[in-house]
């Protein structure tokens, strides 16, 4: 009922409302849609796969288990309709050789899928990958159903 609202109360109320709105904003942006949060400078590489399996935007990219970046976009090539994955890689890892290969791997039997990079050798004859380059050597995701299918098929043909 006080008529004179003290400055402290006004400030705290302001903070409270700001905090509430920030939480709402964060929920809508960080929890519901992509957006902020990657942090740090990065550069982009591209890779084409036959099949990306369960790979998702923001899936990690690893070399020997160390996260060096994240998948920032997945789309289909306009002409040949093969999946194109955009790799956001931290700027400090910018000396990858052109001989680098990339595979879609699975953590555990049913776990999340990630991109595993196998860095190629570096010497004078091989250039390093420049931002915007395509990684040529790619291996698609293993799809369990296909694997089982192949296994059964080979078993069947082996008996004849």
């Amino acid at each position, binding site marked *: *009922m006080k008529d004179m609202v003290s400055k402290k109360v*006004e400030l705290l109320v302001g903070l409270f409302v700001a905090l509430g709105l920030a*939480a709402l904003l964060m*929920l809508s942006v960080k929890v*519901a849609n992509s957006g902020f949060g990657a942090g740090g400078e990065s550069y982009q590489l591209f890779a084409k796969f036959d099949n990306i399996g369960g790979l998702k935007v*923001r899936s990690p990219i690893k070399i020997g288990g160390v996260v060096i970046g994240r998948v920032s976009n997945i789309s289909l090539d306009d002409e040949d309709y093969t999946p194109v994955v955009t790799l956001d890689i931290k700027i400090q890892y910018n000396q990858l050789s052109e001989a680098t290969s990339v595979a879609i791997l699975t953590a555990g*039997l*049913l*776990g999340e899928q990630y991109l595993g990079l196998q860095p190629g050798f570096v010497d004078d004859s091989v250039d390093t990958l420049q931002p915007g380059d395509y990684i040529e050597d790619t291996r698609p995701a293993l799809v369990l159903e296909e694997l089982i299918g192949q296994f059964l098929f080979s078993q069947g043909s082996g008996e004849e």
Partner: protein
Amino acid sequence: MQQLHYLGKQTLSMISGLGRAVILLVSAIVHVPNVRKGTPLLIQQLYSVGVLSLLIIIVSGTFIGMVLALQGYTILVGYGAEASLGPMVALSLLRELGPVVAGLLFAGRAGSALTAEIGLMKATEQLSSLEMMAIDPLRRIIAPRFWAGFISLPLLTAIFSMVGILGAHVVGVNWLGVDSGTFWSVMQEQVDFEKDILNSVIKSIVFAFVVMWIAVYKGYDCEPTSEGISRATTSTVVQSSLLILCLDFILTALMFVK
């Protein structure tokens, strides 16, 4: 015969109570607030209803998020599905736990305090005194409190869900080793802005309405004695908690079941 008489009497008193509550509600919220005089009153109430509930909301939200992450992880890891920890926590918090638990805490913290405050004002003749000063206590006392609650609870609910998710992130990612990117990305993929976040806000607005209505009505209508106030305070918490849980079921059925 005796029972019938009793039943009739109870029904009548319930209906007249509901009538008084509706009149109170209408006169409290229909008044056009006076900007010059109303704003400081609203700010003062936002402080006592919102800011003072902040601590309990943040602490409970964090712990609930952390517990959800621990429990969720131990279950999900059995299926190798710990990648789904993020959406599990986020959806539980946004759809149900956030609005409901924040609503229950709000009823206990702010609702009971409001009932007691208004009841005490009535018992010490402060409300009568306002009336005799030609100042409408509905406009001066009830309306700002009502609106403050209405604004505060949705904000508190958002804060609750957010700190809950952050708490789950601490447990899931920093302690249990779920990948941070997976945590967020799978969450983002499964949480829908309209379906989950908007509905969370709608639920919290409905609950705010229920808690504030019950709290101010119980205070305004209480018997102006010590027992009357304590009874009114208890029944504010009990009734608003039950109504929150009840309405939550109805709202969930309307929102998520096609």
